[in-house]
């Protein structure tokens, strides 16, 4: 019956006791209890528990560990003689939902999940199951605990939850675009009835704005869902800035926002994935325009895009607006996928995609912002 302690003289004492506690009233015949493990080379009753693909430990009423298996030792160190909470969590207090104590109290099986720290410092989620060990009088004398590392399961669960949330947000974004398309089309239809050109123009403006919306939306979704390798071409940063700004000329005029560019003519042509850097600039400029557009302060709004040397090996794209600005919490979250403050207007993908692209180029994005004053994004890239 004593399957654990033979290899470890330090455990003998506590296990002699356990042995007494656990001894069944009638001993089973030797060969029956040992026949299966003996059939497998290298495995016997003495090391069976050590080989179990989970952590096994036995605790007494004071939560002191009496026994641990090899797998436990490998990941948490030899915890025998210590309290389980100090081994699992380096904590002097017991865990709030301690399943071991519950099993001592109600003599039943218990299951909990805990976040613990391995000896190598790694944080893990484990699923713990406990069951009581009884003595001859039916009293609980110890609790055996089996724990499984479920960290990966937890990560997968989180991803699924994020995915669900993402789909809800995506459909929210699409519904808004659809509203714009249907609404704009309605206005155009009405204008035909009256042959009212001014109304037609207004309606068509709404439609075409939302067609842009669909295009941006789809581009960003595709980019964030695919891990596309970069395709480098030689390009002029100044020209990229001019191209992107040209795209937004009409939209900015419609929003009464001035666009300005500042280009250092000495910047050489550089190796870039042109399509994806264009998307970064488009996303940042569009954000800047929107930050101005939703700003209710009565001031002249301006979005300026600058490209210049950062140092001798790097150049910079700098997108500055004098719109609403962001508080610190927002600044911390802007690069998270599906984070958006734009509610109806955002997919929460634009900046996440921008950061992904810039990081892939070996560059970085910096942001400084003051609520009420405006925001500055710096994209710093190698000259190569």
């Amino acid at each position, binding site marked *: 019956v004593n399957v654990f302690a033979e290899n470890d003289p330090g455990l003998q004492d506590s296990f002699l006791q356990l042995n007494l506690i656990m001894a069944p009233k009638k001993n089973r015949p030797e060969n029956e209890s040992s026949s299966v493990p003996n059939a497998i080379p290298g495995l016997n009753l003495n090391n069976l528990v050590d080989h179990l693909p989970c952590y096994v430990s036995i605790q007494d009423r004071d939560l002191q560990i009496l026994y641990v298996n090899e797998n436990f030792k490998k990941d948490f160190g030899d915890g025998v003689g210590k309290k389980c909470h100090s081994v699992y969590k380096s904590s002097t207090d017991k865990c709030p939902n301690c399943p071991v104590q519950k099993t001592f109290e109600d003599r039943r099986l218990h299951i909990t999940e805990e976040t613990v720290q391995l000896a190598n410092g790694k944080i893990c989620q484990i699923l713990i199951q406990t069951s009581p060990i009884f003595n001859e009088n039916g009293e609980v004398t110890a609790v055996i605990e089996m724990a499984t590392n479920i960290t990966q399961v937890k990560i997968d669960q989180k991803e699924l939850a994020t995915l669900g949330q993402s789909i809800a947000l995506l459909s929210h974004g699409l519904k*808004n675009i659809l*509203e*714009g398309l*249907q*609404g*704009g089309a309605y*206005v155009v239809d009405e204008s035909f009835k009256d042959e009212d050109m001014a109304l037609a123009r207004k*309606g068509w403006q709404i439609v075409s704005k939302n067609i842009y919306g669909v295009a941006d939306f789809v581009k960003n979704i595709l980019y964030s869902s695919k891990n596309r390798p970069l395709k480098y071409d030689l390009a002029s940063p100044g020209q990229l800035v001019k191209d992107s700004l040209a795209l937004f000329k009409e939209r900015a005029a419609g929003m009464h926002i001035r666009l300005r560019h500042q280009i250092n003519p000495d910047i050489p042509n550089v190796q870039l994935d042109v399509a994806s850097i264009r998307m970064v600039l488009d996303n940042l400029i569009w954000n800047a325009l929107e930050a101005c557009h*939703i700003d209710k302060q009565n001031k002249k709004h301006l979005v300026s895009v600058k490209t210049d040397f950062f140092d001798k090996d790097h150049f910079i794209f700098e997108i500055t607006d004098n719109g609403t600005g962001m508080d610190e919490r927002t600044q911390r979250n802007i690069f998270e996928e599906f984070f958006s403050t734009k*509610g109806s207007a955002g997919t929460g993908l634009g900046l996440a995609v921008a950061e992904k692209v810039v990081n892939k180029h070996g560059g970085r994005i910096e942001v400084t912002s003051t609520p009420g004053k405006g925001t500055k994004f710096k994209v710093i890239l190698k000259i190569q």
Partner: protein
Amino acid sequence: MAENLKIVMIDDNTDFLFTMETFLQRNGFEVHTAEDGQAGIDLIKKESPDLILLDIMMETLFSGFEVCKQVRSDDDLKDIPIIGISAMGDELDINYSQWPDYEYFRPDSFLEKPVDKQRLLQMIPEVIQKAQKRKRSPKWKKEIEKDWAQKASQKKRS
């Protein structure tokens, strides 16, 4: 029905405001619009409309929910029916039900973007009629609280 009915519409999306204004005017309603919550409240006080169409997910500090709250807490405005509009659809009720006092202030009805315009035309008289039948007394908030307490204790007993 539509004749002489006055609607205040609050939404921070100017395109949506324009579309809906065009639609509602062409169906015989008098429409006044505001682009944020504060301007909306001022407009409601000035116009005492028969109905409020409200974007509940506005990005301004003064959210749609805040507008509901101010309307319902004002003795002169509390019975004006509100239709809440958002692209959030099903998720919406869940999100907003976490607000404190949501039950007192919630809109009378919801409409999802993209707006089904024919459904909106059906909904307007329904919502207005319902609101006329159910006038809130000046102590309506206390009454609802009492009603709730009763329901809660009934639940416990059963």
